[in-house]
């Protein structure tokens, strides 16, 4: 636990200093042409809520910047893809055609990323995705690709380690939702754990009933069950497992780190372990406060903070006087600053440096951090 503490306090310092720097710059008068950054992801449709959370994070960063820099007003343009890869190319094209856009916060999902990034790459328009964690997004030789969080290839092994070492599980059950994210993560866990996995299955996330999977788990009686998927299904699944009398410890990936999980699972959520490559350090509280101030009655949700970090990187480029896409892209290559979630610095494949994965635990309806996974 102590390690993470020192980490986040360090992060806090840097953020604080960066903010003051910004303010200082304004005083000196950061001026710029009318430029904008864009949000690319689902704002409507079935995945709209996730996108709205992300957009809110970026929005907060932009409005903070604009208040601080009256002479450099940065716009935030929305590209609502509904998370649908079929719509992504046309939207990407429009973003590319809008010369004032210097960077993209998004795309939000892996599918639409694969459909849209080739266009951004051809146009040299930098993107920072705050949420697409698919492991093989980075091996497409895309120059413009960056992400503000670790890929699943970092989280998966950490989860396996946690299950093996900390939970000391002898029998593990692994379930996934057959989506790119969920299955990708679960497969890494399966591969890493090998023989300790005694039961393994997939669910259809759109279904309401998971009884076949539940029966299987009940029968195999694992002492830990990992589920790769998003929070809503995780909630349903947790509930149905508990109803059937399964008492195994439940472990989830970062897609479950959302209050929606607690709501959906109710008391069944208690005792669950959730992992995330994100750490809510001390600076996070500050961010959360600002967030609630801007969006009354709301707290930052999944990937909101990552989006804030992503937008901040672009804003830093603008503040540094970059006026074209090539400049912004170059700037990101050298960017190294503390974000709300972590130290943001990209390697040549566009992955953030450092791969700290944190474990959280649900207790009495609250998700709280229990520490870094070694």
């Amino acid at each position, binding site marked *: 636990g102590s390690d993470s503490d020192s980490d986040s306090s360090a992060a806090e310092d840097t953020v604080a200093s960066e903010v003051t720097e910004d303010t200082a710059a304004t005083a000196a008068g950061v001026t710029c042409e009318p430029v904008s950054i864009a949000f690319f992801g689902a704002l409507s*449709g*079935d995945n*709209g*809520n996730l996108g709205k959370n992300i957009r809110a994070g970026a929005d907060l960063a932009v409005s903070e910047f604009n208040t601080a820099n009256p002479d450099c007003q940065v716009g935030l343009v929305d590209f609502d893809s509904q998370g649908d890869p079929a719509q992504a190319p046309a939207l990407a094209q429009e973003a590319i055609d809008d010369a004032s856009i210097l960077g993209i916060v998004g795309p939000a999902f892996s599918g639409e990323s694969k459909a849209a990034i080739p266009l951004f790459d051809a146009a040299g328009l930098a993107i920072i995705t705050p949420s697409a964690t698919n492991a093989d997004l980075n091996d497409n030789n895309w120059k413009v690709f960056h992400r503000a969080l670790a890929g699943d290839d970092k989280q998966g092994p950490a989860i396996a380690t946690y299950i093996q070492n900390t939970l000391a599980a002898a029998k593990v059950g692994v379930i996934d939702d*057959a989506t790119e994210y969920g299955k990708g993560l679960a497969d890494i866990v399966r591969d890493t754990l090998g023989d300790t996995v005694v039961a393994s*299955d*997939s*669910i*259809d996330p*759109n*279904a*309401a*009933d*998971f*009884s*076949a*999977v*539940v*029966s*299987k788990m*009940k*029968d*195999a009686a694992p002492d830990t069950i990992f589920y790769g998927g998003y929070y*809503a299904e995780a*909630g*349903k699944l947790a*509930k*149905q497992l508990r*109803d*059937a*009398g399964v008492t195994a410890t439940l472990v989830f990936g970062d897609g479950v780190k959302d209050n*929606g999980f607690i*709501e*959906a699972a*109710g*008391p069944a959520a208690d005792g669950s372990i959730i992992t995330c490559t994100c750490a809510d350090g001390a600076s996070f509280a500050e961010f959360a406060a600002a967030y609630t101030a801007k969006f009354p009655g709301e707290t930052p949700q999944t990937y909101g903070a990552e989006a804030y970090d992503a937008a901040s990187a672009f804003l830093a480029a603008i503040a540094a006087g970059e006026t074209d896409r090539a400049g912004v892209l170059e700037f990101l290559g050298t960017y190294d600053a503390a974000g709300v979630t972590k130290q943001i610095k990209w390697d040549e494949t566009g992955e953030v440096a450092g791969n700290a994965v944190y474990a959280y635990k649900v207790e*009495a*309806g609250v998700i709280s951090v229990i520490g870094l996974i070694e």
Partner: protein
Amino acid sequence: MRDWLIYKTFWDLTVTGVALGSLYALVALGYTLVYGVLRLINFAHSEIFMIGTFASLITATNVLGVPMLEAGQYPYRTGFQLVLILLACLLGSMVLSGAGAVALERAAYRPLRGSGDQFGAVVLAFVTAFVVGLVFFDTPKSNLIFGIIGTGPIAWMYLNIFRRGRQAPRLAFLISAIGASTAITEAVAIWGPRDREQYQTPRVLEKKTLFQLFGTDIRIDYVIVIIGALLMTTALLLFVNRTRLGRGVRAVAQDVETAKILGVNVDFVILITFVLGGVMAGGAAMMFTLVYDQSKFNIGFLLGVKSFTAAVLGGIGNLKGALLGGLVLGLAENYGSALFGGEWKDVIAFVLLLVVLMFRPTGLLGESLSKARV
């Protein structure tokens, strides 16, 4: 290893499969009834079901004031209070679903039969005005007001355009059904308090094990669902086969014009059919919330597709077939997912359907209406 799993979990899977199948059957009854009378795949039936789940939710929380959690635990009730709450929810679901079905019939189908009336005109007019209002207004409230103001003149206009006595082709009904289904789902998603997120319904019934059968726990909620399905099917069968109105339903199903000249009030009979289908869906919805305590704007879609499959499997238009089809489908899905993995659940369902239809082209029990000869 998988065979071994099947063996040990067989009874578990059977019980949950029958429970799931009973839910399918209940929803399938509505499809089959409407199909039997109008030869229409009532795509919006799944939305009638969805409305039922929300009715249950509203009755429990808003009307009866049951909290979601009490001191972090489910708000279990017992004895008389429990029965009362359950009955109230059942009533609420049935009434609202029934009413929804009526509105649907009058607005989206009846005008297509060439006998559109004021009620349908008013509903359509309101919706039209409301949609037009979307262009000008941003808030739901002003939109609503605009919609209400616009209703009068538009309804008058619609009444004038309704084609008297002209029957639309069957495809038109299907598309109207799809449109209505889309509009209802989206309306809940857009204007519901939680948008597209999942809703939880309070869990008042503790899922106690009543007894054990072949080493499997038989839970009370499953028992209620199974008994409910049997009761409702029986009641419906009695109604259709024993009552005068039931005879009217069958007559309309076979030959509308002849039914008319023998004194059957065709519009009324169709309305009754929808009411019955709606009430069944309402019952199913309440039981659904009992087992899964959740709802969502699109909760009906997949369940609807499955239930319609069940209806076809049993022989569409055949009430006993709906029950049988539901049970067979529920079991097949459970056994199948245990054998091949949960991700193949739907494939199993559809392959089963294909195989059954190959050998019995009109379903397990056959259509209740036979075709006229050449």
